[in-house]
């Protein structure tokens, strides 16, 4: 994964915390699966909030490392997997232009 790529959250998903569970709720018919809820773990929720179109994936990784005590060695792969999953349901897209 290119660590210089920047991603931005889609407005078609609403991030909510319900009873300590972080979830993404798809609100449009053309994104995700309306019959599903997308649950994020603590790291996933943190990453979601960083995907603002200005930070690169490298920036986000550094923030994860700073914010969490026990970051697995697989953090690069986990981050890549998360962004791919989010992209596949159109919850994020690559940001245009220079921030």
């Amino acid at each position, binding site marked *: 994964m290119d660590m210089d790529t920047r991603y931005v959250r889609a407005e078609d998903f*609403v*991030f*909510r*915390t*319900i*009873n300590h*569970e972080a*979830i993404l*709720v798809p*609100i*449009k*018919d053309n994104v995700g*699966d*309306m*019959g*599903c*809820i*997308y*649950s*994020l*773990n603590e*790291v*996933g929720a943190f*990453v979601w909030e960083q995907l603002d179109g200005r930070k690169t994936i490298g920036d986000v990784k550094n923030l994860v490392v700073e914010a969490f005590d026990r970051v*697995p060695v*697989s953090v690069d792969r*986990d981050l890549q*997997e*998360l962004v791919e*999953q*989010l992209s596949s349901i159109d919850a994020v897209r690559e940001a245009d232009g220079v921030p």
Partner: protein
Amino acid sequence: MSCLTVQDIDDFARTLMPRDGEDRIPLSGSLELTLRCNNRCVHCYCNKGANDTLEKSKELSSREICHLLDEIAESGCLWLLLTGGEPLLREDFETLYTYAKKKGFLITLFTNGTLITPRLADLFQDLPPRSIEITLYGMTDATYERMTRTPGSYKKCRQGIDHIMNRALPLKLKTVVTTVNRHEFVDMKQFVEDLELEFRFDALINSRIDDHGDVASHRIAPEEVLELDLTDTRRGPEFVGFYERASKQQGDPEALFRCGAGVHSFHIDPHGRLMLCNMARTPSYDLRRGSFRDGWHGFLPLLRKGRLKKTNKCVRCDLRWICDQCPGWAQLECGDPEIPVEYLCEVAHLRAAAYGIGARNSSNG
């Protein structure tokens, strides 16, 4: 490690339900946008005239409702029922619906379907609800409109259903069975099943929230309720399963409320009154004077602490788990939350006998 997991919504719901000892969470709420309705159904428990200006003047404004939606979202509500009266009568419905969707609620809409336009159906297509539930009152103009007492309503309802079906939106069709439309029950069921939709029905009509009209006279006999139950092969296993699960729970036998109202659900009326449910309407908490958070954490728990003050045949009745008797029903029917509703008692005993439920300690109906 996977940071994102995909869950079916119903499975997710089960993981969220508070267990004994855990905090109460307002996961599920119903919001009556108005009590006004363009139909005048004979069985309805709450409807006011569509042009009732006094009633309209008491309703929450768009701004107040949006503020309320902010508050209940913040408190953890995920499932939101928009109901009425007829919610589509509100001129700001599209604004309110869009706002609620963008807060991330999973919305169910109860409507009579007569006011669904292509434009509104397009909005639902763009921002789909979890489900739209339309009540069918008959399968002919004559019967439907004897129920609604509104000329032209049958045709409009069918048009509304077409608009939803044409867009493949998540539609549920149901009926309330009364003495007026009982004879068209089979036709309604067939119509819904031909559309490859699930058909649901209810024949237990509760009393009105005011003293305007006698809905009880439109109830079918308890024996007819059972006849209808027996036409639905799902009902028997549902009653038996529910009885078996519920009767094993260690509930407080002296508690007035035994349901989930106020534990994981709430109801708000069009005037901004927070209450346990749409039937247990008093006492209530004025959300125009206090916050939802205070109402949920400070007011509703006091109601939940209500204790039985009387001894009646329901307290130890083994069939209470399959009986619709509850404080809300009793309050509306008898003006007292603890008085048994005899109609419900008769229905419960008939069901128990038919499905072989609870022979140990049942009251005599």
